[in-house]
């Protein structure tokens, strides 16, 4: 139980944390004000490292609200709720942990299983495992070593298709009788505004969390953080574990409440402090002595020791985790979650997603159709249920949890090819509604935000202008229109015209009048504004698409045509083979707009050579989609592409399970080639 010493320690820790944050605020100011001084002695991390971090998770599952990403060894590295785009309540990516086991920092910001037997605790992520994807989850069969883990183990992660409930299951075969299974969680509930994400993730290493407690002696454990907690909340938390759930809700009001419990019997539990080696739940679980403390606040973690139940195949422990804005709500959902068996939930999820994918157009080849359906599943799981906001993945790395218009365009094309034009329209209209119709400083008419959080707010800093977003969106809109029946196409284009016109005008006006090149626009890779051939391509594609839309609606735009011709001439001279090989964007839209067959063949040949040289997985998927679209009407080329695409599918990188946009690109390649 807690005592005054604990309160004092917590106050001191929070005060230290706060002072550290004040220091960081002033530090960032120092960064910009003292930048002129420079510093050649520095060798630490960078404020921008989160921006450029690669995707390290192995996959994700979700239901359009609750989204869970996991590593290849079955540990949960991020949990986004109530949207795939905000907020992460675990935080591995944010902390940029080194991926090596054996030390405590590994346990910070992740959730995983452990097994206690023969007076030792072995943690499952220590062992390599084979991952199998399920319709609404994944399972991991551990590859044990005979000395440290002399029995076979399988972990399963499942997300309920409707409710915000996560199931984590551990099945152990031929385990010793006294074996206990431990679920460890370093949850960090985050109730901060998602739009502040970019800076918060970069600057604050431990901004979240609040408290962890148990009301029922370990039957269920709660991690929570009220919305905008005050210093009163932090310092005068009191022993509220004696209160009723309604009273607790009244005390702390809304926020993020995460409750987990088990349908099995609990043998021990600990609500611990991450930075206190005596009270840390991970340290205690490692030593097999969970102290049964019912309350901790500050930077907390927790562990639950479970007596497994016997099943046909051995022993099993299940942990059900629910999410809610209030404790009462989260407990109600948990209660429902605990009333179902994992098999029931797996069946319900399979049936739900089967229904969701009903009517999709996939290949007749069974093997290909399975992959195609998995791709669509990945796409839908990364899409917010009610708003069609699409993220690449629910992870912080690379800011994959933000929405970007180029992703929407690829996703829309995949959905159109799958016959799901309503999904495609959802992705695109969400972005077309963001085209600016007013001319504001740094936000000219017709431009788009660089990216948005899934709560529809522009990411910080919003003054960056990324002009190629506009081209991508216009191309996406025109491409989508082509998949609509005639009557619907015209209605769709009419509906979009006001935004299309603004965007087209932007691409016409936002140009260096002398060189006829686009004015510089922000390029994340260079961390600055540039005007390069990729930007020119996006202008050409965008203006070309806008012209086609105008033509379809009977609107004359001679100035656009003239500018489009200028761009085309400029591009033809710039697109050398070596330049084509360097480009990191899809070129099919350009070829489609220009309709230049000779250029098409050249680009196809260069890109296919590039594929052979072996680039990284996400780039390969983009090139494959590009090639497949280029080869669309030529059986000979399609024939040549088939083995390449198949090789990619069988290669096992399974990027499409961890990157929804990668999944969309693979779907496009498969749909075009098979």
């Amino acid at each position, binding site marked *: 139980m807690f005592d005054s010493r604990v309160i004092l320690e917590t106050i001191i820790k929070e005060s230290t944390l706060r002072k550290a944050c004040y220091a960081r605020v002033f530090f960032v100011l120092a960064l910009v004000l003292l930048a002129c001084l420079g510093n050649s002695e520095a060798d630490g991390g960078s404020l921008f490292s989160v921006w450029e971090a690669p995707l390290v998770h192995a996959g994700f599952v979700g239901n359009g609200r609750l989204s869970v990403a996991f590593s290849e060894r079955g540990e949960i590295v991020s949990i986004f709720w109530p949207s795939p785009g905000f907020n992460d309540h675990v935080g591995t990516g944010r902390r940029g942990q080194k991926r090596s086991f054996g030390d405590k920092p590994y346990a910070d910001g992740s959730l995983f299983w452990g097994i206690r037997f023969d007076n030792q605790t072995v943690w499952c992520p220590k062992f390599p495992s084979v991952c199998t994807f399920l319709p609404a989850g994944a399972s991991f069969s551990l590859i044990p070593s005979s000395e440290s883990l002399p029995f076979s183990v399988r972990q399963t992660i499942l997300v309920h298709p409707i409710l915000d409930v996560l199931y984590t299951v551990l099945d152990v075969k031929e385990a010793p009788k006294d074996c206990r299974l431990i679920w460890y969680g370093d949850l960090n509930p985050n109730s901060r505004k998602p739009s502040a994400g970019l800076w918060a993730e970069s600057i604050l290493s431990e901004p979240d969390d609040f408290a962890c407690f148990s009301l029922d002696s370990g039957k269920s454990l709660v991690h929570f953080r009220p919305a905008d907690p005050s210093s009163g909340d932090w310092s005068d938390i009191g022993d509220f574990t004696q209160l009723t759930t309604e009273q607790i809700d009244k005390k702390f009001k809304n926020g993020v409440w995460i409750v987990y419990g088990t349908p099995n019997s609990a043998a021990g539990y600990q609500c611990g402090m991450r930075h206190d080696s005596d009270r840390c739940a991970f340290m205690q679980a490692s030593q097999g002595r969970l102290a049964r403390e019912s309350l901790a606040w500050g930077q907390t973690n927790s562990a639950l020791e479970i007596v497994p139940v016997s099943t046909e195949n051995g022993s099993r422990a299940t942990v059900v985790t629910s999410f809610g804005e209030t404790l009462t709500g989260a407990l109600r959902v948990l209660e429902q979650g605990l009333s179902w068996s994992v098999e029931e939930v797996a069946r319900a999820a399979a049936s739900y997603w089967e229904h969701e994918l009903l009517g999709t157009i996939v290949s007749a080849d069974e093997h290909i159709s399975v992959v195609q359906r998995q791709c669509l599943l990945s796409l839908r799981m990364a899409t917010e249920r009610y708003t069609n906001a699409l993220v690449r993945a629910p992870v912080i790395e690379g800011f994959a949890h933000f929405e970007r218009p180029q992703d929407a365009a690829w996703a829309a094309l995949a959905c159109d090819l799958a016959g799901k034009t309503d999904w495609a329209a959802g992705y695109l209209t969400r972005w077309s509604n963001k085209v600016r119709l007013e001319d504001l400083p740094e936000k000219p008419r017709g431009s788009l935000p660089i990216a948005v959080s899934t709560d529809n707010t522009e990411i910080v800093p919003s003054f960056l202008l990324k002009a190629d977003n506009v081209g991508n969106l216009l191309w996406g809109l025109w491409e989508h229109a082509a998949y609509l029946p005639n009557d619907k196409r015209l209605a769709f284009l009419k509906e979009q015209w006001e935004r299309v016109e603004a965007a087209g005008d932007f691409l016409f006006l936002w140009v260096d009048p002398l060189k006829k090149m686009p004015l510089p626009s922000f390029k994340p890779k260079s961390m600055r504004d*540039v005007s390069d051939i990729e930007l020119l391509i996006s202008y050409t594609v965008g203006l070309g698409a806008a012209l086609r839309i105008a033509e379809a609606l009977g609107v004359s735009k001679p100035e656009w045509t003239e500018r489009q011709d200028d761009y085309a001439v400029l591009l033809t001279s710039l697109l050398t083979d070596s330049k084509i090989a360097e480009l990191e964007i899809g070129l099919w839209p350009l070829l489609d707009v220009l309709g230049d067959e000779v250029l098409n063949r050249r680009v196809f040949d260069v890109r296919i050579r590039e594929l052979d040289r072996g680039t990284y997985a996400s780039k390969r998927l983009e090139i494959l989609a590009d090639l497949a679209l280029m080869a669309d009407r030529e059986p000979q080329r399609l024939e040549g592409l088939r083995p390449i695409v198949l090789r990619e599918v069988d290669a096992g990188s399974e990027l499409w399970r961890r990157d929804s946009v990668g999944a969309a690109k693979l779907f496009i390649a498969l749909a075009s080639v098979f």
Partner: protein
Amino acid sequence: MKPFKGWYFLLFAITCVFGVLLLNEWVAVSAPAAGYCPADAQFIITSSDFGYFWTLLYLSDAGLALRHEVPLPLKDWELVVRHETGIRPTPIRWRVWLGRNLVASKSSEGFGICVYPGVLLRALELGRRLATSLSLDSNDSVDMFGNYYYAWHNGYLIVSRFKSFVLAVQRGNEIPKKGLPDRTAIEIRYTGEPAWNVTLYAKNGLPYQGVVQARLVPATGPLTLVHACPERPLLSVNTSCWANLQFLRNVGKILIFKDDWRSLLGESWCHLLGKWQLGQIQPNWDVGVTELAFFVPSVDITDGVPVPNMALVLRSPRRVFGEHPLKSLVSDGIVLPMEWEGSPGVIAPLFGDRLALCLGQFDRDWYLASSEKTMARLVGNLKRNTLLETDLLVELYYEQLGTLLQSVMEAWADAQFIPGKNAEELRADLTPWLAGMKRLGRFRLSAKARGSETAIDGFLAECSIAE
């Protein structure tokens, strides 16, 4: 009516109190030296009468200006000390209990103070030793009081949160009384590289003077760009040559924490520079430049991200023409031609309108600015001022700094960046401090070459200019 016999007792009591205080004071002033510090101390602060200095600091215009907004600026610290020692520190109490002399120092072992208390604290300590199991011979034994370690060493009291520091002071150097600043001042000495010492006076404007053991290139004539910025800037630096900015960097780098913050700062800056792929500055690029001025006229705050508007003006003896001396910075990237006041220039965009390297020229000056807006404000609009005979001048205006921090605080409070407090509390806590800061006027540092060293003087908070 009986005469009041208690008068004798009262008189006796008053005489005793005065006697004790006199004795206390007599012991305190009889300190043979200023105090002790560790042999490897990096920072040493000395005062001949710290309580008096503290009082004067409160009564100076800067102290009054700050206390106008924050009546008890040391409230939190005083509370912590009171919780830990039982006494809330005030200037009078400091003098009664801890005497006059103060040597505060920081070394690799930690930080702490060394004082020469009067008879009162010594008597109290004796009483404590008699009442507890502590040895009566207190010399050089390290004991604890609350969270503090302390030891007596040759009659001096050493106090620190770090035991190793107390031991290091016992083994350390004696600081002689001779050379101590007068009662109205304290001396701050830095023994690192470059070494410097400054005497700070608790007078209006908080004036200071000192010496830095670093060489400054002397100006060939008076500085002409002082206060030339058309509007009052947040920060301005005037000097005669680029090399003198290195002097500023060397002195200034100790102000930045030498831990991961500094690494993060440097790494982020280097990362950006690497990404931006700016060109190399040509050697001897500043040949012919006789004076330079660096201004930060303002800082834009959008979404809580501070982006400073900065400018560098390079002055030549005669009208400039030809290629900008810093053109090589932008020669590898995209540049857009531009014109300011009829003179040619270029813009190399970095972050839209907020950050773009602008290079231009006008009359005798080359300009480099971080945004077009700043460039437009400066080119052709520099004010003519009286000439100043100095080699380096740095000025920071607290009102602008306070306004900037206020905007950042507002944005960051809304974004809930600071754990442990919500936006409302953060505003309530910081707003008075920032309002107090705005009343402090100007920080000013003037440096003049003096052979192999540099003499500095100026004001920490020149409040008079704020009025």
